[in-house]
């Protein structure tokens, strides 16, 4: 079931009452790093997905303490680090991980997940047993595990884009949240938080600007350097934006320093036919400047339609955008070219202040606090320069879209209220039974209830960054659009901007070096001036893909008509068939043009695909289910 995540090897450890399984993607120590792996005495067993990037330094320290190693793998380092430090080992690790260590003596299992939520880890309790896996579908192979949909998770997704906390789309299945550990002992699981971001901006006054740029360069260089560690070739994704261009420049520089100049850095990118999504001209500038070995994938609307059912199969959650589909195709493209590790620019916007929502919040606060002069109102058009329909609106209208009511300002999630309020409107599509199930629920209040105590003392930008970093980043960007799309093809993605030292540095910066007025990523752009001169001044263009109209414009979308048919919607029970029919009619008549319609159609269709794959047609053999129109067939 999880062969796609680890196509290179698979093994099992079994003893009375416990078992660990592993499907391996060999990246470090290809020859001897097999898992599950044990210590010398056979008292500790580990199964581990991910990479420990500082394993060389950790190993050196462990060797000084008398540990002797049998392999060159990072897995053995992790195991011995645990032997040496117990749970404190987690704080010493720089990496992306989901691991389980079984202690045969104390009959205790430790589950752990990396700080930012790069690698997934799900679990369920059934008949006093704990089952865990990297993906939910593996848990469903056990027929005792319920596959019932959780309406509260649906409510979360149709508000903040992903289920909150440990919730998943399925009632019986929980996710170990990012930066958390779980201890399973005597039939009980205790989950605790090991790490969360701290935006208290400790460098507020202390750091001269020049020194800040040097420190950023040092942190990012180190983060990139250790993420190039692998016994297989490492490439980078290149979007044509500032963030990935800096990563590519640093990676190319590292190769030169290590004498690999003869082999150009492999870079990979997506191009779209539609000019509004396409960034190829910028990608080419960076490729020319760095001399990379560039590979470009052309993605069409028909491609997105074709793979969308597979995308949802891997994402295991409703999606409000089609944007994961091109990344699914890009990972396949990378794998077909013989690569299985890529660095990306993900995380820079959260850590260094790049998102438009941050500017939007500042502007809304400005209007609310100081009133609306003509000049302040005109600023609104600078918020979303990449959205042509917004540029056509009058400033007065735009201002009313981004209006902040008097009590909004006092709301802890002020920055995100417009986005969440717009998304919540999609709930008009819910069926009566789902509405009844979530009638008492308030997803935004649930977000507020989870905020850390220090949050109240942070500035507006810091709060918005925190919300992005802890909600959309792990819940959507790193998972549904990240790990799940790349690991569908056995491609591992690595994120220099999410290195713990980079994150800790970024979150400590004074606001003027993050977003000064409406200038975004102030410090990162300064670094870009030398590392990515071709794009350092470029206005941010968020990664976007052709929208839900693709499902009505290409011939291969027969499955969309079937899954959105009133009879099917009624049978599956999550949405109102009349409401969905109205939405579909808008699309068929070419009248669905709004962001909300796009999210609605994608959200309903992907939810229907979740039901199709995991409720109606789930097969418990090792091949999974594939939707091909009107019936489920076996994959491959």
């Amino acid at each position, binding site marked *: 079931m999880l062969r796609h995540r680890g196509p290179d090897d698979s093994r099992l450890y079994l003893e009375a009452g416990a078992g660990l399984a592993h499907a391996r993607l060999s990246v470090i120590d290809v020859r001897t790093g097999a898992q599950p792996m044990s210590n010398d005495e056979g008292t500790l067993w580990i199964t581990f997905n991910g990479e420990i990037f500082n394993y060389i330094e950790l190993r050196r320290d462990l060797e000084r303490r008398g540990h002797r190693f049998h392999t060159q793998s990072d897995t053995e380092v992790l195991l011995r680090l645990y032997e040496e430090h117990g749970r404190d080992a987690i704080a010493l690790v720089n990496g992306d991980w989901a691991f389980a260590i079984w202690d045969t003596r104390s009959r205790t299992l430790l589950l752990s997940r990396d700080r930012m939520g790069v690698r997934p880890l799900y679990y369920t309790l059934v008949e006093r047993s704990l089952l865990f896996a990297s993906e939910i579908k593996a848990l469903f192979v056990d027929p005792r595990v319920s596959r019932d949909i959780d309406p509260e998770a649906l409510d979360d997704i149709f508000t903040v884009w992903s289920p909150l906390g440990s919730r998943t789309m399925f009632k019986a299945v929980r996710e170990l949240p990012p930066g958390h550990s779980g201890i399973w002992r005597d039939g009980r699981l205790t989950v605790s938080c090991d790490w969360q971001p701290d935006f208290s901006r400790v460098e507020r006054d202390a750091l001269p600007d020049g020194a800040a740029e040097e420190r950023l360069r040092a942190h990012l260089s180190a983060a990139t350097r250790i993420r190039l560690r692998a016994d297989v070739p490492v490439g980078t994704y290149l979007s044509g934006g500032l963030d990935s261009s800096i990563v590519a420049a640093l990676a190319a520089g590292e190769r030169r320093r290590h004498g690999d100049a003869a082999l150009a850095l492999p870079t990979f990118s997506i191009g779209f036919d539609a000019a509004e999504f396409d960034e190829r001209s910028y990608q080419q500038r960076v490729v020319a400047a760095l001399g990379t070995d560039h590979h470009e994938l052309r993605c069409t609307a028909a491609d997105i339609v074709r793979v969308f059912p597979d995308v949802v199969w891997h994402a295991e959650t409703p999606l409000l955008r089609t944007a994961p589909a091109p990344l699914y195709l890009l990972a396949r493209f990378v794998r077909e070219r013989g690569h299985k590790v890529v660095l990306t620019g993900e995380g820079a916007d959260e850590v260094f202040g790049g998102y438009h929502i941050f500017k939007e919040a500042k502007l809304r606060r400005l209007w609310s606090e100081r009133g609306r002069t003509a000049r302040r109102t005109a600023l609104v058009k600078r918020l979303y320069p990449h*959205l042509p*329909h*917004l540029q*056509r*609106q*009058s400033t*007065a*209208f*735009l201002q*009313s*879209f981004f*209006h902040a*009511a008097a009590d909004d300002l006092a709301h802890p999630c002020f920055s995100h209220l*417009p986005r969440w*309020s*717009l998304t*919540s*409107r999609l709930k*008009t*599509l819910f069926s009566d039974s789902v*509405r009844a199930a979530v009638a008492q629920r308030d997803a935004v209040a649930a977000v507020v209830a989870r905020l850390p105590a220090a949050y109240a003392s942070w500035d507006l930008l810091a709060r918005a960054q925190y919300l992005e970093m802890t909600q959309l980043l792990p819940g959507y960007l790193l998972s549904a659009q990240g790990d799940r799309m790349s690991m569908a093809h056995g491609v591992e993605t690595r994120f220099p901007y999410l290195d713990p030292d980079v994150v800790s540095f970024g979150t400590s910066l004074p606001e003027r070096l993050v977003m000064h007025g409406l200038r975004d990523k102030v410090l990162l752009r300064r670094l870009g001036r030398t590392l990515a001169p071709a794009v350092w001044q470029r206005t941010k263009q968020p990664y976007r893909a052709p929208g839900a109209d693709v499902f009505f414009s290409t011939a291969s979308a027969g499955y969309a008509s079937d899954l959105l048919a009133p009879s099917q919607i009624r049978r599956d029970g999550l949405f*109102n068939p*009349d*409401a*969905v029919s*109205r*939405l579909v009619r*808008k699309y068929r008549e070419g*009248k669905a*043009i*709004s*962001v*909300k319609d796009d999210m*609605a159609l994608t959200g309903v269709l992907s939810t229907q695909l979740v039901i199709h794959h995991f409720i109606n047609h789930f097969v418990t053999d090792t091949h999974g289910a594939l939707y091909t129109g009107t019936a489920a067939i076996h994959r491959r």
Partner: protein
Amino acid sequence: MEPYTRELRQFIVDNFLFGDSSGRFAFTDTDSLQELGIVDSTGVLELVCHLQERYAITVADDDLVPDNLDSLERIARFIDRKRGEAQMIRAS
């Protein structure tokens, strides 16, 4: 004005609320459609297309302001004014 608001309500409910204006999705004739998130930025363009087709009025860029289009009542007044202007032009 009332026939306009009734028709407009139907259009808004069908097109922006997928047919449902009960409970938490309810709105009055004077509520701001933008502030309630019922009509988003592209939705305004959709609304304008509908007004032009259904009521045979011309909506200029300068007309795209909340005073004209932000609530059912305002839209109804706007239609009334526009149709009145058109009649006067025809009469003259």
